[in-house]
């Protein structure tokens, strides 16, 4: 267990870190998502550029607020079963965080980095908790994601809302029940260039339905991936054999809506024209390319992965780079389910045949 180091300086050196300089080892500083994106970059995977506002930055910010408002103490005093008080206190906390700007020097570093990404470029702002996306406990879903944020004001606003999400009643109740000290509380925020994707989706390097490790399952739909994550659209589904690259399953679902960027910032939902609804959102070549990437990522991490991907709209000029990964995290469902061996070695190789040919008998005897 990492006992917290009380070293809060105004030093902003470690406040933001670029993906290219990160690896999984930096998770305490940049959270699961941030570390994973950094790791992907260093594995040579095409990831939209971005940076992480570190846990240190968050702590520096929170220390100031805590000194003024006694936040930590108020949280520790809460009873997770007293829902009314919990709701009211956490609501106040969130409002406080959302309206309190970070210190000038920190804001400066964040917006400087934003300008380095590009001119008024749209970004996704996502929380990246240190315990989130890790094998031990999944906070996934408790934290927020803000898509297609444009301009410094929207960016800083989204960052504060990410920080504030730590004070959701569910999140707080969870920490209280597990006795996680508030001093250990840390959150990084990922700021990543957004891809205006023609289509996007998720993929798993083992079957989410059967746990089969020899297949990659890809789900995709038109537009931004948020429509799939939120469950608003039934995606196309493809199953590809990792070893032979054969596409063994293809289920094209009618995709009635898509999420697109809103010019004012954020995203909007639009109906998809009828002809395009029933067309596969991926070509066979793209399916194979995604599979290849999935294999590389899985190999890099050494365990099954749950990956978010996008294919950019304007492939003009950089067609080879049009497939991008937005996120990768370890698959958690089947990892815990791996069961007893399917078969054990037998004295003679052909004994297996006797075991199977007599299996009816064994079954019958068991049912007695």
């Amino acid at each position, binding site marked *: 267990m990492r006992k917290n180091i009380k070293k809060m300086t105004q030093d902003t050196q470690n406040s933001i870190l670029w993906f290219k300089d990160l690896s999984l080892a930096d998770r305490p500083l940049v959270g699961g998502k941030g570390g994973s994106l950094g790791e992907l970059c260093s594995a040579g995977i095409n990831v939209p550029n971005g940076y992480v506002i570190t846990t240190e930055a968050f702590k520096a910010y929170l220390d100031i607020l805590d000194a003024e408002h006694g936040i930590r103490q108020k949280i520790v005093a809460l009873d997770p079963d007293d829902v009314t008080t919990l709701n009211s206190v956490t609501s106040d906390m969130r409002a406080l965080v959302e309206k309190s700007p970070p210190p000038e020097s920190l804001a400066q570093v964040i917006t400087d980095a934003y300008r380095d990404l590009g001119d008024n470029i749209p970004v996704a702002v996502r929380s990246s908790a240190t315990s989130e996306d890790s094998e031990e406990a999944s906070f996934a879903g408790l934290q927020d994601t803000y898509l297609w944020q444009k301009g410094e004001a929207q960016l800083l606003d989204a960052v504060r809302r990410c920080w504030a999400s730590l004070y959701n009643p569910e999140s707080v109740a969870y920490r209280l029940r597990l006795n996680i000290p508030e001093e250990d509380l840390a959150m990084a925020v990922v700021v990543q260039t957004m891809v205006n994707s023609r289509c996007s989706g998720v993929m798993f390097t083992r079957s989410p339905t059967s746990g089969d490790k020899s297949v990659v399952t890809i789900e995709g739909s038109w537009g931004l991936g948020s429509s799939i994550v939120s469950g608003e659209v039934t995606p196309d589904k493809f199953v590809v*054999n990792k070893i032979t690259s054969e596409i063994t399953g293809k289920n094209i679902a009618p995709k009635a809506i898509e999420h697109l960027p809103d010019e004012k910032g954020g995203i909007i939902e639009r109906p998809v024209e009828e002809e395009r609804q029933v067309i596969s959102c991926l070509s066979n070549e793209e399916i194979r390319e995604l599979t290849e990437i999935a294999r590389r990522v899985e190999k890099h991490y050494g365990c099954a992965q749950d990956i978010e991907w996008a294919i950019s709209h304007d492939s003009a000029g950089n067609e080879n780079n049009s497939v991008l990964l937005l996120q990768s995290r370890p698959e958690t469902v089947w990892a815990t389910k791996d069961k007893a061996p399917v078969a*054990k070695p037998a004295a003679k190789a052909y004994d297996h045949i006797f075991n199977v040919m007599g299996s*009816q008998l064994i079954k019958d005897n068991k049912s007695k």
Partner: protein
Amino acid sequence: MSEKKSPFPMPSEIEDAPGAENWAEMYPYYTHVQPEDDERFWFYNSMHFSEPMSAFDMITAESAYHAMGAFVNRVFAFPTGKGVDYRCINGRIYITANTATDPEEIQHRLSIFQERAGHYYENWNEIYGQWEKRMGQLIKDMNAIEIPELPEFEDEAVVKEAKGISQNHYLRETYNDVLEKYSIMWNHHFEMLMLGYGAYVVFFQFCKQAFPEITDQTVARMVAGIDVLMFRPDDELKKLAKLAVKLGIDEVFTTDGNPDVILPAVKAKGDAGKEWLDALAESRDPWFNISIGDGFYHFERSWNDDLTVPLSALPHYIELVKQGDNLERPTEQLKAERERIITEYRDLLNTDEERAAFDQMLGVSHLVFPYVEDHKFYCEHWLTTSFFNKIREFGDLLAMHGIIEKSDDIFHMHHTEVNLTLGNLMNSWAAGSRPVNQGYWPPIIAERRRMLEVLKEWQAPPAIGPMPDNIEDPALQMLWGITKETLNNWAAPAIQNENEIIGYAASPGVVEGVARVLRSINEFGSINEGDILVCPITHPSWSPLFSKISAAVSDIGGTMSHMAIVAREYGMPAVVGTGSATKRIKDGQKIRVDGDTGIVTILDS
């Protein structure tokens, strides 16, 4: 017994095909449907018997199932699977597997099975070596059978050597001998086959449990060997094509493949021609003893019987040789790819224990593979085509003596009817009179020929009788060759897009092109470079076609079928087992074959 109504018709409910109401008289009474047959589940064995049986050809079903049941049930005592019953309905063969269900009986059978099957597995290669010798001898003996010619007077030797037996006696003796050797072939055929399938089934089942989404074709790729006899006839053709180019005599080979024109033209080429003809003679024995079908029907002749098929394939190979293609199968590459697939699946297993079990099961599959694959050449191809040729010789005799009109008419008589009729010939020759009632067979045979044409159009239901509760037992799946999914599809066929035909994805890739619907290898000439082959079923003798086409589609066949194996080798998409591709796709239509998903789409309808 469940009271639910079966999704399939009952055997007793099936009506005679209109216009062929008298079909049943062609076949023995014990192949007819009985009232109690409604209590059992049967399915149409379209894989082996895709056409209505002529009266004589019924012997393939009879001999094969008698031998199969004997070896499964009585020789090796498979624990749950017994033999197979068969029935003929409107000329089609329906089968059902008998099973042991009483735990005590299964236990008893298992103990016998372990000892007996264990002996074969333990000594597999040695026994297979003996098997090849036995089969080789059987083929030799079959070919050595001399059918009597019934001369005006007996050969003098009968007297001088005091043989004391006349030729008409030998009519029946040789006929029975031919039939016996055919029956022995089927016995040898099933001697090791079901044990081989047992090994496959176990490995398939392991793979399906360890990798629930693995396709049959991927398992098949791990099991299949590279050096199998099935490829040999095609390899011989390629060798002959190269030799023709080397000798500079390639221009005599024309796509019509007419041996009466081509062979004299080669002979006229002097020494070069002689060298090529010598090479041809060497290839023919034994490699051209390959049936143009699967060896279940009398009309499926061998390349040796009709050289048109191999000769018409030569010009395309010659063209490829001239373009610099060495025509060699990339066997090393194929082996390396197979090894890669095996290694990567093995690596994905969870534990070393599983990997050890995987190695053992795959090892047994590899041990049995050569037999499972190569027995076909000896049994269904070589011996079977010889067998039908011997029967043809009896047909010649009957025709010569005016009992039937032409030689092939004999195949419209049941084998017991032939035996009976030989009595008429024996008496006629001995008595010096004309055979009795020469008007007897011709109208019967004409009517049977007519009925068979009508029966060809009959749509045979894929399954009949009550839906079985449980076919999970691997022994049953092995005997039936069908799974729960197959049954469900038959019971409630998925509603399809009318331009889509769904089959098994047998070889990956997607190709669009012009469909060539071929019902027989003799239509080979109509195929153009890049066309897509659409056919009922392909056989090893069709291999030369694959150098010309861009994709393949079949009505019948699974992932271990000939088309699937050859298409994977050529790296072209294939969809097999569509059931209806040759009916729904019209020759010349543009189609898309998706060998990844198993869907064939008609693009211009």
